[in-house]
């Protein structure tokens, strides 16, 4: 037996198309992080089909638990708590993780900690370095584009979010026009690095006096440009199209983030979520952050940008310390959101 008691979280993540179970020690060390991805299955349909996702999660869930415990070399007796994503996400997918986590917590008499998926994405940063507060997070994924202000470690306040498409969603949609199957983020990013911003697509809401985003106008401008060229049989450079699209996305994200940092000085800016793996965005934020002397940029490592249970364990340990608990009635909450920053807090 160890002399110093270890805090061990068994964590579950099934909000979309990845079944993942992890064991996290003391909130910041990954002992195991099993991720079973369904991408190949959903590629048949050009995007995630919720009913299919849910069916795959059931196939995978207990095997992932076994692997996570085995890889971490721990038993149920060693565990401190069970953490699970309960929203936001696809309801039928979330329910598999929630049900499995509740069953494990009950069977082994362990406390159950409900975790917001986006808190997980942000807390992935903690698996590399401690988060310093106040902190700001730019969370960009297939389903979300949000600026989150964190005055303390268990306080998450939205200061801006997308009014329409999430950034990742926009990538998938314009990817389809370029003949790239879902998920299009990485291939479009690679293509963009070989081209130039020649099309100068609109930067929506970039000059507005708020921290909200919008990508549907950009998406439409992109699609119209391609369709128009098709009609007059003009061949456009795919590289330049990708570069122009990405530049517009990155400009809006970087400008809004920069403005948010001016209004909310923080010690750390965390770039998190699936789209945080985007090279263009990482390069741009790295450049921008140089003018904020007191703010450190924390780029979540590529391996932890996508959905995974390690990040849920990292957030789960923190929430557990702050008393977050769920009982056996815990349900999936597909539309779960952080609260908006109250006006008086500004």
């Amino acid at each position: 037996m160890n002399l110093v008691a270890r805090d061990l979280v068994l964590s579950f993540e099934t909000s979309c198309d990845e079944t993942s179970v992890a064991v996290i020690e003391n909130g910041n060390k990954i002992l195991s992080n099993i991720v079973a991805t369904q991408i190949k299955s959903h590629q048949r349909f050009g995007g995630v089909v919720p009913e299919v996702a849910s069916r795959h999660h059931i196939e995978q869930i207990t095997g992932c638990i076994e692997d996570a415990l085995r890889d971490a070399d721990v038993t149920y007796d060693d565990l401190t708590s069970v953490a699970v994503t309960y929203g936001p996400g696809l309801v039928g997918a979330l329910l598999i993780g929630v049900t499995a986590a509740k069953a494990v917590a009950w069977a082994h008499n362990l406390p159950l900690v409900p975790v917001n998926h986006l808190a997980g994405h942000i807390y992935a940063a903690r698996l590399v370095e401690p988060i310093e507060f106040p902190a700001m997070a730019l969370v960009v994924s297939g389903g979300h584009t949000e600026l989150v202000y964190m005055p303390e470690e268990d306080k998450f306040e939205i200061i801006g979010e997308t009014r329409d498409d999430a950034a990742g969603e926009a990538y998938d949609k314009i990817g389809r026009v370029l003949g790239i199957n879902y998920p299009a983020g990485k291939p479009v990013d690679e293509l963009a690095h070989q081209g130039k911003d020649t099309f100068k697509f609109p930067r929506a809401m970039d000059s507005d006096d708020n921290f909200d985003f919008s990508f549907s106008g950009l998406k439409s401008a992109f699609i119209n440009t391609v369709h128009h060229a098709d009609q007059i049989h003009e061949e456009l450079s795919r590289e330049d199209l990708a570069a122009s699209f990405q530049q517009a996305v990155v400009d809006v994200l970087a400008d809004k983030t920069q403005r948010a940092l001016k209004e909310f000085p923080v010690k750390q800016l965390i770039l998190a979520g699936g789209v945080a793996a985007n090279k263009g965005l990482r390069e741009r934020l790295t450049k921008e952050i140089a003018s904020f002397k007191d703010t450190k940029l924390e780029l979540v490592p590529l391996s932890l940008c996508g959905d995974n249970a390690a990040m849920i364990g990292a957030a789960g340990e923190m929430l557990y310390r702050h008393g977050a608990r769920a009982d056996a009635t815990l349900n999936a909450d597909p539309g779960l959101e952080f609260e908006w920053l109250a006006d008086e807090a500004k």
Partner: protein
Amino acid sequence: MKILAIDTSNKPLSVAVMDNDQLLAQTTLTTHRKHAEFLMPVIEDLVKKADLTPTDLDRVVVADGPGSYTGIRMAVTAAKTIANTLGIELVTVSSLLNLALNVQRADVLINPIFDGRNQNMFTGLYRWNHGTIETVIEDQHISLGKWLPAISDYEQPILIIGDTASFEDDMRNVLHSRLLTANPLMGIPSAALLGQYGLAKSPVEDVDAVVPRYLRLTKAEADWKKLHPNEDTHNYVEKV
């Protein structure tokens, strides 16, 4: 042997805790469809009331479908996770067979029905033979129009139970006096009968591989299969 039996295949939720074939505690609810919220609390409550702890359990018996997709998912996910995490046995039983267990008589063919919408049904045909229930026609997802000719040639009366309302009139037009109906309470699954039946069945060999008995592909997969008839549909999920 201590058994936990679960059926949430459709709107009713039924859970029982048994000691061999003796019932210790049972709850059956028909008032809601909130299985996600109610299933684990009911399990927790019944095991406690039976004066047991989870680790006392030896076997989980689950009605694994067909039924509502969400319903069978809840039951199967809970059942396989409990069996896996406690290292105990898991037995799976058809949800239609479980309903048929409510009719303990040998003079009829038992036809349990779940509504599959648009005049489709999840159904099968069962009978008792010397104290054992037997499958006469396998569970399937089928239209009423195709099911009727399949059952019209048997000589015995056919007793329908379950979601019979939208099918009864059409069935009577074909089967006439050979169609029997039952007390509607027989259309509500009993986890105690499920547990008793599961006591004699052999457990599954691979708990991890257990999935609900959907008996119907998702629309996306069905459409895709039409276009790709020879494609191997296994190994679509990869651990990375």
